[in-house]
């Protein structure tokens, strides 16, 4: 859907890849999403989805002994009204496609429970492993704000 669609200016932030910085990154994403026109509900969904992507980034960074590396966040709004957030970490590749289920009837929480949540909360979730690391792209349509709809 992004194709040739023009976007408004984007913002970029980065944090050390350590769990104590994840909260700061989430709050920054919420502030930026509100600034870009997202309503409270959309911002909340984006926060919870981005939080899962950040948790994954921390876990994968740790697994390959790269805990001191950074996580990069990018956020922008497309002209067709979508919020696009990218979470980039320098961890090893993982099979994003095989994950993504809810806990089963025995309450086993599979790895990738967070990916399931991301997919449920967002309109689109994409993953790719580039030379620089993992890129998770989260896309959410921004509803027309009530004050503009009436």
């Amino acid at each position: 859907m992004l194709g040739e669609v023009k976007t408004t200016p984007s913002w970029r932030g980065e944090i050390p890849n350590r769990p104590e910085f994840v909260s700061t990154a989430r709050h920054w994403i919420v502030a930026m999403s509100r600034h870009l026109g997202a309503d409270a509900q959309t911002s909340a969904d984006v926060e919870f989805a981005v939080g899962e992507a950040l948790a994954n980034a921390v876990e994968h960074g740790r697994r390959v002994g790269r805990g001191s590396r950074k996580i990069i966040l990018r956020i922008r709004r497309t002209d067709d009204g979508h919020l696009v957030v990218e979470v980039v970490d320098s961890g090893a590749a993982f099979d994003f496609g095989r994950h993504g289920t809810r806990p089963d009837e025995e309450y086993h929480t599979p790895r990738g429970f967070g990916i399931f949540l991301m997919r449920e909360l967002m309109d689109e979730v994409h993953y790719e492993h580039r030379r620089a690391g993992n890129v998770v792209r989260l896309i959410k349509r921004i509803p027309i704000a009530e004050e503009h709809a009436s």
Partner: protein
Amino acid sequence: MDIKVNVRPADGETRVIDLVGEIDVYTSPAVKDAITQLIDEGHYHLLINLEGVRYIDSTGLGVLIGALKRVREHAGSVSLVCANPQIKKIFDITGLVKIFGIFETEQSAIKALA
């Protein structure tokens, strides 16, 4: 953002765990430690009050599920107090609403557990 954990007795065998803050990959180990200690001490009926929690991720949900699995080995229970609509939405999406008793207020939870 940190997490504050407070444990107090309720009516009967139940222990209430008050959580205030955000439960994520950084703070969930503290929540897990508090719950584990209670279970190790023989408290198998837990009421976890999430009224002061504005965020929980899959790591935190995993801690809650782990607690439920452990107490059920002793015929125990884990109930939750949660009025935050976004967190309730997460419990709905994940289907966890079916395995936890979820109450709007602590009063209604204690009444149901009595």
